């Protein structure tokens, strides 16, 4: 069975400082991993995905994530936070052998302070 743990329910950073949102996963097979962002009153938007190619994945809006199999982690980072980054972020794991396919983390609310 697969699972996802987002280690922080809330993260607060100052504008211009780095962002780190942590995600650990558990999977019986080689998973695909995704990060989605949700702004208020909106659906989820894909930030980036890992699908067994390069372990460092670059996404939209300056975000990137590194797949570390030894640590079963897929943390999301950004060098410099912008006010518009304030949103909720979800880490998602997908296993090809799972009929339902996707497991979502519980989300991390990112606050960006001026």
């Amino acid at each position, binding site marked *: 069975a697969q699972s996802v743990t987002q280690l922080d329910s809330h993260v607060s950073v100052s504008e211009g400082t780095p962002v780190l949102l942590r995600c650990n996963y558990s999977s019986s097979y080689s998973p*695909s991993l*995704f990060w*989605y962002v949700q702004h208020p*009153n*909106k*659906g*989820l*938007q*894909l930030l980036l*995905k890992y*699908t067994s190619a390069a372990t460092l994945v670059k996404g939209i809006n300056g975000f990137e994530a590194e797949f570390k199999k030894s640590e079963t982690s897929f943390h999301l980072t950004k060098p410099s936070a912008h006010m518009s980054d304030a949103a909720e972020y*979800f880490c998602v794991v*997908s*296993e*090809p052998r799972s*009929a*339902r*396919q*996707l497991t*979502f*983390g*519980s*989300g991390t609310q990112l606050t960006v302070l001026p």
Partner: protein
Amino acid sequence: GAGVSQSPSNKVTEKGKDVELRCDPISGHTALYWYRQSLGQGLEFLIYFQGNSAPDKSGLPSDRFSAERTGGSVSTLTIQRTQQEDSAVYLCATGTANTNSPLHFGNGTRLTVT
């Protein structure tokens, strides 16, 4: 191109009434998911359709919840005899059959049961 469209965007109903929520997927997407997102919570899986296969209904919380997908396209989620605990945002997501491909989310229907 057109994204995933959900209607209505907001629905207020009285306890005990039935409601229908609609999802129009992206053309050609064979996979369709319904999720429920309660205030401050992550995404709760409800039901999954993939092509002409039998749907995975394992996430439906009670027999008051049902969903159908006509002609492999539009989907309707029905909640009968609504309860206050049904108040949430209901999100629809669609995608291809490729598990490495990300999902595309609608903006959701915010259901309030008074």
